[in-house]
């Protein structure tokens, strides 16, 4: 009993295992996640500031940022629309094959990226199932910028669907009933009543899709064509530098990618935290 009283008085920690779980978690995070990042900084320390800037602002590398960011932005926007449509249909309607469609949504997460890569490249190449229909019509997807955006969109679609879906499910029926009974049309009611509830989740999902697309590698390199200045993504630039044993160059570019993705991740987390707090009346 005295032991119990001690637990109660000092803190709210009734349950055991604080020390053990803290030990395992901190040890693991330090060794697996944080320690390797020091290797990157160690490598960067060998570069002067001028050398560092020369590497990360080299023409071919800058072109790869443009290709990556541009394609990722297009992919994220397409996914925002497509993802919203899919989430809406999966939550609001009953139809044959709904279960299957729902299961299919996770395919891009479950399918290894290299498998997605060679499959998309084969489908959209000039002699592929899709390529031999669209290329005579003048649309070239494989080995162009469009192919990169397509591969990015494929790998990141679940982020939008799976972020919007639960929010839409939790929306009570009274919300649209009220709007409809007051005489709003579907379009107006959707824009003015549903969207304000949905857009925090939509922005979060689209943001996650964008971050994922910036770093994607396996799904893209097969369909990209990898032409310097035109269809080279930044992740490939790092890979090319490594194959030339230019570790300093690879590290410099990697540090840019790492910084941008961690900054975006942090921004999304803060944004999400704020929106959750607002929904729960400041208790978050």
């Amino acid at each position, binding site marked *: 009993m005295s032991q119990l009283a001690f637990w109660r008085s000092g803190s709210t920690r009734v*349950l055991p*295992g*604080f020390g*053990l*779980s*803290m030990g*395992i*978690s901190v040890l*693991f*995070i330090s060794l*697996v*996640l*944080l320690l*390797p990042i020091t*290797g*990157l900084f*160690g*490598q960067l320390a060998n570069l002067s500031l001028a050398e560092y800037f020369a590497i990360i602002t080299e023409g071919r590398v800058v072109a790869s940022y443009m290709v990556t960011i541009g394609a990722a932005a297009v992919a994220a926007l397409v996914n925002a629309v497509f993802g919203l*449509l899919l989430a809406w*249909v999966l939550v609001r*309607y009953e139809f044959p094959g709904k279960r299957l*469609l729902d*299961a*299919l*949504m996770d*395919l*891009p997460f*479950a*399918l*290894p*990226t*290299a*498998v*997605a890569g*060679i*499959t*998309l490249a*084969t*489908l959209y190449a000039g002699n592929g*199932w*899709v390529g031999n229909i669209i290329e005579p019509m003048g649309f070239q997807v494989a080995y162009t910028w469009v192919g990169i955006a397509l591969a990015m969109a*494929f790998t990141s679609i679940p982020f939008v669907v799976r972020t919007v879906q639960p929010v839409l499910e939790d929306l009570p*029926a009274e919300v649209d009933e009220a709007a409809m009974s007051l005489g709003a049309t*579907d379009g107006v009611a*959707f824009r003015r*009543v549903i969207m304000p509830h949905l857009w925090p989740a939509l922005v979060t999902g689209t943001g996650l899709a964008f*971050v994922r697309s910036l770093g994607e*590698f396996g799904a893209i390199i*097969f369909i990209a064509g990898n032409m310097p200045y035109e269809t080279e993504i930044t992740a490939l630039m790092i*890979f090319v530098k490594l194959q030339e044993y230019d*570790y300093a160059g*690879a590290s410099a570019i*990697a540090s840019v*990618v*790492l910084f941008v993705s*961690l900054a*975006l*991740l*942090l921004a999304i*987390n803060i944004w999400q935290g704020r929106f959750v707090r607002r929904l729960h009346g400041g208790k978050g």
Partner: protein
Amino acid sequence: MRRIGDAPIVRRLLIGAALLLSALFLLLPLVAIFAQAFSQGVAVFWANVSNTFTLHAIGLTLVIALMTIPICLVFGVALAWLVTRFSFPGRRILQTLIDIPFAVSPVVAGLIYLLLYGRNGWIGSWLDTHDIQLMFAWPGILMVTIFVTCPFVARELIPLMQAQGSREEEAAVTLGASGWTTFWRVTLPNIRWALLYGIILTNARAVGEFGAVSVVSGAIRGQTNTLPLHLEQLYQDYNAVGAFASAALLALIALLTLAAKAGLEWRASRREAFS
């Protein structure tokens, strides 16, 4: 009462658009994998799969996944227990740190391990003088696989354990159960399905990881080639049918993952309906 988007035309239009786009965008690639793999018949598919190098790649891939899972499992459960059962300063930071592997490009993940444990890194150079090689060998593959897969179990458990709260465990402990008994008898039965799904996701990603592994593996055929690297080599050698045979095996694992997820969700919804 009518809800938004209930008009038959709107409804049919939206369902039709969703089905058509999903069929073209998601289903068609899936069908194409198997069509390509079997395009020269079952015998050729089988010859491609039972080839020595493919078998070695399958073996290595499975061994890496089997070693990754228990490590991620222990970490995931410990972290979920820590952040859902206790409140302490730095809790939010831990939850953000665990997302790092999702945000970091797989190529960058491979690179940071190569820089640290490769021959020129500060740990790698020490290991080198003791004749221990981690990079361009299976331990390197294992290390980066753990890096990219470690969030899955924790990510599945944290929301569930947060929602369930700690009342049942507190009751068990106050009634005199030891910490381990409480965990095995109270916590584990409550989280087993989420745990299982976390393991399935960890396995799917471990088996399929490409970017990070391609940086640290060296891709030596018959030695450090995992299945995704093996299919890349075959594809670059213009052996598309061979590449798609390996791809079909990986796609099969992906399909099993989706089926398991659907099954677990169906179970959960049925339980909800009964309770």
